[in-house]
């Protein structure tokens, strides 16, 4: 007990974050055993894990690196499709589902890393709103390319084609009789094995938290924070701006890729259009409402805001309208000086950027 008292405030918050996630997982698992989780709730568990990972990883780019990214769903898309391809191709080689899921997630993360290098090298040279619009552009480009992707698998291995002319279909691949389609262009992935599990989601969330929190508390993390707070000052004390920006950006993309794989392997059908601009925005809303740079905030915001439209079911058609109004009101309430000072009196202010 004495040991806990000596920990710094940020450390305590970090441990509390881990503990909170573990407790939530334990509670949900127990409730599942007792059959007290509704069907619709059960279907949301894995997507919630995916969005928590997405929000925490985007917080690394937006909150901690301080660069607005509007294309985070693009990396999720890359991860989802490469992960699905990996999982389906390894069907015979790796019969064990958890192992196949793990390998697929690594593949998804790796492809997202490659994509983030391609995107990051030009993007991170730009600043502010220009950077935002270019990430948006990359997100859209990735979406369109995925929309053209046609992949099949047979005894000879993977067959990949790009439907650029609009006339290529799965039949153009010339699969032999043992072959099956994995991704069918605009229809997206079809007939995917649903091998994602809630436990895997929980493990991914924990890995994400460990990676992000340790990165932020490390020497590299302090360099990234320094770049956010004052780029010129950071550069003048010898911090390699490009290197640390890339580090944050690539880590963020890798986690998004793994989350995408988990998401893709949770549905038997998934179209590329799912990962559009609106998905990027959805995750950005989680991050901003959870608090920039505040990791536990992102976790809670992702869970609450993902469940909220579901909880608003009784409003039926009005639920997205209510969601929009809630969003605007929260932004107005938290950013109006009068409300801020009132809240400030009730809660003693903590230093900015505290986890």
């Amino acid at each position: 007990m004495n040991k806990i008292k000596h920990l710094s405030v940020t450390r305590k918050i970090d441990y509390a974050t881990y503990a909170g996630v573990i407790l939530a997982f334990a509670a949900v698992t127990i409730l599942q055993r007792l059959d007290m989780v509704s069907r619709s709730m059960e279907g949301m568990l894995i997507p919630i894990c995916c969005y928590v990972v997405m929000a925490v990883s985007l917080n690394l780019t937006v909150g901690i690196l301080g660069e607005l990214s509007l294309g985070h769903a693009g990396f999720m898309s890359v991860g989802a499709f490469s992960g699905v391809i990996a999982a389906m191709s390894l069907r015979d080689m790796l019969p064990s589902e958890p192992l196949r899921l793990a390998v697929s997630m690594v593949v998804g993360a790796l492809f997202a890393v490659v994509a983030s290098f391609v995107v990051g090298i030009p993007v991170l040279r730009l600043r502010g709103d220009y950077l935002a619009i270019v990430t948006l552009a990359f997100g859209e480009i990735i979406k369109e390319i995925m929309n053209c992707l046609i992949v099949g698998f047979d005894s000879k291995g993977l067959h990949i084609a790009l439907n650029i002319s609009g006339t290529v279909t799965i039949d153009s691949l010339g699969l032999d009789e043992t072959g099956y389609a994995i991704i069918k262009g605009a229809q997206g992935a079809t007939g995917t094995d649903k091998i994602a599990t809630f436990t895997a989601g929980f493990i991914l969330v924990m890995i994400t938290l460990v990676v992000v929190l340790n990165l932020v508390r490390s020497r590299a993390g302090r360099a990234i924070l320094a770049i956010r707070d004052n780029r010129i000052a950071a550069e003048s004390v010898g911090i390699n701006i490009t290197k640390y920006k890339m580090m944050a950006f690539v880590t963020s993309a890798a986690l998004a890729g793994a989350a995408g794989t988990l998401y893709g392997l949770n549905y038997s059908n998934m179209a590329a259009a799912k990962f559009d601009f609106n998905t990027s925005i959805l995750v950005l809303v989680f991050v901003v409402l959870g608090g920039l740079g505040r990791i536990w905030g992102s976790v809670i915001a992702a869970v609450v805001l993902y469940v909220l439209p579901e909880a608003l079911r009784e409003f039926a058609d009005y639920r997205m309208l209510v969601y929009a109004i809630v969003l605007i009101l929260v932004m107005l309430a938290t950013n109006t000086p009068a409300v801020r000072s009132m809240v400030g009196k009730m809660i003693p202010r903590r230093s900015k950027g505290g986890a």
Partner: protein
Amino acid sequence: MEFLSYLISGISLGSIYAIIALGYTMVYGIAKMLNFAHGDVIMVGGYISFCVVTYLGLPGWLSVVVAMLVCTALGILIEGLAYKPLRQAPSLAVLITAIGVSYFLQNSALLIWGASPKVYTPIVSGQIEMFGGSLKISWVTVVTVVICFIIAVGLTSFISKSRMGKAMRACSEDKGAAQLMGINVNRTISTTFAIGSALAAVAGVLLCSFSPSLMPTTGSMPGIKAFTAAVFGGIGSIPGAFLGGILLGIIESLAKAYISTQLSNAILFAVLIIVLLVRPAGLLGKYVPEKV
């Protein structure tokens, strides 16, 4: 001949993007915010015009006027209720609020007009035939290009000549100094939103005449593309938005015709990225060196 007709349809589409981009760029120049709800104002403009023509049976040109009035009021209302309290807030908070407004408009439209697409009757119909019928230009195209040109010229002279235009330029340069010179900053910003929204209404009507199906999400993709056009030309610059819009329309049309329909947006955005890498402030944008 084929090339010419693709080029003309590109210019026409580009004119619509240019009108939307003008609204974007004005608002950005003065309020320094990415107004993601702008695309949805276009959609509202389209629906209002649709309703006036279909339910009230009034002529098309009158529906444009009504749409402009409604959208202007809407623009002022949105600005006053959602953006004005956030003048001092960090830009991300304003961005999220704009996204909230965008959701709000889309879902209100969904509740009022339903999800199924409405078939919009173009405000002008018919076409001109040239070169013995080998080149056909629809009147919508001609009207779109002419309107865009008039708006661009009008807006440029308004910004450079009128008192309000001068106030707008002053506010975009330095709000604090503008206020000290006796300019009503809040009113100037509201006026900018009003003009931008009126332009969005015109764009909405033209867009629906161009591709006559109207849905609650009709405005979002053209909105994003027009935003791209504004950045392409140099955000904050009126001639830049005009140029960027037209170029983007031409690129999209030619990419669809000669490269790939599937990848036309990807090509569009790739061009944007390349331009921004060569000219980080856009084609006509001012590059402001950073002072330490």
